[in-house]
């Protein structure tokens, strides 16, 4: 299995794709090398991958207010990061069967989406954190000082995946990263 594509909108240096370029990077199997000037967004790309797939190291992965992209004078209020994994072994495909994307070329991939909203400027009711439609099995991206809460991370694609079918963390994140991202 390898990471085939990483997309990010309104995350750090990357914009929403309309006023400023978003991140939409196609990777190759094997070695990929990032070259760029200071502040070009290299670390942003690596951190985007860590945000959506979590990490095996003991560092906590957290979103901070400054992770939301600034365009002009205003800071974005939502951001999204999406990773597409390809080249799964039959056993890996079996474990995520219901969330696979079936490519016209006969290959299967899985897309792991992540969304976050800044809470300080939003009117989210405080109960959202325990709202039943938010899959509780997804580990919350811990919000420092109550500024950021994760919104519903639904597995699959563009919101059409069944909301109730929660990908357990061991599959959507631990599993993928444990196998060579």
């Amino acid at each position, binding site marked *: 299995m390898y990471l085939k594509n990483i997309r990010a909108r309104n995350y750090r240096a990357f914009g929403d794709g309309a006023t400023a370029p978003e991140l939409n990077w196609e990777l190759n199997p094997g070695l990929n090398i990032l070259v760029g000037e200071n502040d070009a967004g290299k670390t942003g790309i690596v951190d985007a991958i860590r945000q959506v797939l979590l990490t095996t190291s003991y560092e906590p992965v957290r979103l901070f207010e400054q992770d939301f992209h600034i365009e002009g004078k205003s800071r974005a*209020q*939502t951001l999204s990061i999406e990773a597409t994994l390809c080249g799964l072994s*039959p*056993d890996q*495909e*079996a*474990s995520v*069967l*219901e*969330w*696979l*994307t*079936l*490519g*016209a070329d*006969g*290959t*299967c991939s899985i897309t792991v989406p992540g*969304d976050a*909203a800044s809470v300080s400027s*939003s*009117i*989210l*009711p405080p*109960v*959202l954190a325990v*709202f*039943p*439609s938010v899959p509780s099995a997804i580990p919350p991206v811990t919000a420092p000082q109550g500024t950021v809460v994760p*919104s*519903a991370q*639904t597995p*699959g*694609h*563009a*919101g*059409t*995946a*069944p*909301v*109730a*079918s*929660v*990908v*357990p963390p*061991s*599959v959507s994140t631990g*599993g993928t990263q444990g196998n060579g991202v």
Partner: protein
Amino acid sequence: MSAVSLEPADLADLATLAKDLNFDDVERRSAMLANGSRDFNAVPGSGKTSLLAAKLLLLAKKWPHARRGICVLSHTNVARDEIAQRLAGSAEGAQLLSYPHFVGTIHAFVNQFFAMPMLRSLGQKVDVIDDVVFADKAKSLLQLGMFSGLRVYLENQNNGDGIATTLFYRSADLQVQVESGTLPGSHTASYKSLMTLKKMLTKDGIFRHRDMFAYADRALKTCPHLVDVVHRRFPMVFIDEMQDTSWDQESFLNRIFDGKSVMQRFGDVDQKILSDEENADLLTFPRGGYGCISTSKRFGPAIASAVGSVRLSGNAVVGEGAGNLAPVLLLYSPADVAKVVSHYGRLVIDRLTEEEAAAREVKAMCTRKSGEGKVAAGRHLVDYWPAYGEGQQITRMRSERFWGLVGDAKKSLLEASLHSRVSDVRRALLLVLRAAGAPLVGGVRDSRALPRAAREFGASGPIEGLTRHLVISGEQLCVVDQRDAAIQLVYAGLKPYLPDELEFEEFSALSVFDEPESQGTTSPTASTRCQVSHLGRSLEFGLGTTAGMKGETHSASLVLESYGGTSRKFDVALGLEYIAGIASKKLDKLPKTQQAQMRNLYVAMSRPATLLCLAANEERVPPELRTALLSKGWHIVVV
């Protein structure tokens, strides 16, 4: 091998897991300990669902895999719920209800693992998968001017309605076929219009259940290697009610599981009551070397012998239940047909103690719901209970009305997960937003996509808050005299998403807030339930079709005679000849239509634990048949 085996020592755990169940006899023990692929044919009341649930509990206890699961398939939601309920009773069992396992209907399985991923990958929206909604939408699209030619063609067909409302996809290349009637030649304009109609419905995301099997086939055609993937996820597969599986379904399951996973199938081949379908002769259940469970714990010897005599396969039915009441034949004159059901109610009060009657439900059933036929009364359920079925229209349209979706939680608040409740409320809000012309939902295909659309719109807070509020308190908010306040609340909650110029007045008049039209004065409950008072006791019991009561256990069951139409026979009158042992032909020599009637009779007669009652028109039960029945220990009562 990833499957888990059960050893005799594991059965010791049963005593703690399922105290009320007894699997000591050889047949049940061998079914419990079977570890390879095998079929089991079990008589009604043999407790095959209990056995399956107990077996699953034992397997769950030993299940070592985190990302491989057990797949448990049934045919109806009723059977699925029954298994799920038993599993939910223990911590180990409850694990089977979530990832990586699957417990559900064959349709749900095919949808979740194949059809939906395929549709998602194709970028195809899915709004609703429902044969009734499909038929309604097809009929309303037909009224468009572009279909005027097609309308004329359909009007001139025997079954024009059936053609337009049952268009479905078959096989991986999505060939369009019809379930009823025949398609016109593919060169005709009518054919092309029908294809356009199906395409339009597909584009709107409106599908029939059968379409999903075509998309599942397409998934396997698109990614052929998946055939080698599915069995890795589900090394063990259990199928309940196997006799009701169609060939389309069986062949699909065989492709992904047969010879790869351990597949155990449970059913009763004699209870197959939908037999006039295509390729029924290809069905493999039960396969050679199948196991049998031939003793019924439901009813006693008297009912068992009657049930056994209408069993098509001719295998014996052994009754080990406690009941020892004689079966009763209720005879009525055609003028008294509408009195039969309440007479039965009084009979139950006479013969069953209060405890016996309350132990399980009392029911009355008939194979046919309604219909024509120029024969004397006793043709179908409506003959016996003229109000039957009235007022049922309302529930049918539930998925299209705000009040139905929000105001009736249908006990979903008591479930462990609020998932079904949340999706009902989201669907209701989606309908409102659509009706109000909110730009937010322009591209929203399914209510599940609503939260994402709201986020992209820049404000998910209000709609999430409103959803939560309606999920929790929707039922109280939607009582009839509070509805204005409820609409106000919805208006306030959705205001950020609504077009600016939409005022409350206009909003509250949207058709989505219309009351469901009432269907006459009969309430839906009165049309399917009968209340009887007798000897100072009162009894209320349900009426329905045999197909709808499959798998149920009753304390007392009334089987109402029905007319077979093309078979030219009444089921009870025909069956009585076999019960009395005076039939001239063997069961398996009967024409197919009459065999189908006997299968239904077998299913109906095998429901009761204590009292079995058949009802027949007295003109159709000749004296010699009555004498033979009496000598078999039956009681005959005239209404």
